[in-house]
């Protein structure tokens, strides 16, 4: 029982240290993800499953009322990036 408590305490301390580690904003993590998803020579597939976006009512230019809407996405799209050479010698 004592061992278990010690193990739990050590594990909690480990997580605690990590939590206390300085630096770093979530924006940087997001940057990493975007870098990865837009990297060179990459093929990224986004698979949307029953994806729904509620667009709320809004007031447009000149006070025009814009009604609400629901957008639905189902299916996948693949984004492929390719690195191509750009040589100044080629005319």
């Amino acid at each position, binding site marked *: 029982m004592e061992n278990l408590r010690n193990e*739990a305490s050590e*594990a*909690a*301390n*480990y*997580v*605690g240290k*990590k*939590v*206390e*580690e*300085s*630096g*770093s*904003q*979530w*924006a*940087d*993590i997001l*940057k*990493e*993800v975007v*870098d*990865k*998803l837009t*990297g060179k020579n*990459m*093929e*990224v*597939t*986004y*698979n*949307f*499953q*029953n*994806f*729904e*976006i*509620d*667009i*709320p009512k809004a007031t447009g230019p000149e006070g025009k009322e814009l009604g609400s809407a629901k957008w639905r*996405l189902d299916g996948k799209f693949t984004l492929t990036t390719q690195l191509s050479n750009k040589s100044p010698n080629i005319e």
Partner: protein
Amino acid sequence: MDPETRTVNTLAEILKSVQGKIIIDVQDKQVLSVSLEGNRVVLDVSDASIFGTAESDSSIGLFDGLKTAKKLGETLNSKGMTLSILRKGKKALSLGRDAKPTLSTLVTRTDDIQVDSVRQVTKLGKDVKKHRKRTKKSS
């Protein structure tokens, strides 16, 4: 209100109006899935390399962001939202409204973060570090 809080607030509002699931595959391999269920967002990390391959010196891992997670957890709670982070389908961390911290309160010093599995959080951190080391070696 500071810009970071404003951003999280706006993001929370947008997420509330979206429902469904997105699965992201890189080179035919699933790396991430995001499920949006109104007040609940489930982020499943299948391949942690997505967080650690940028070639910048300021590149950071998931764990390094946990300090900010405290603030994120508090904001999500105030918006009535919960973010669950899974590693390969297994629960690792919960932030926000439904977080029920027990032992983790002692280390995170907030009621808005629940460590569901120390094992999975540790593994997730190791996954990220492993990929970052590999990237540094190859560059």
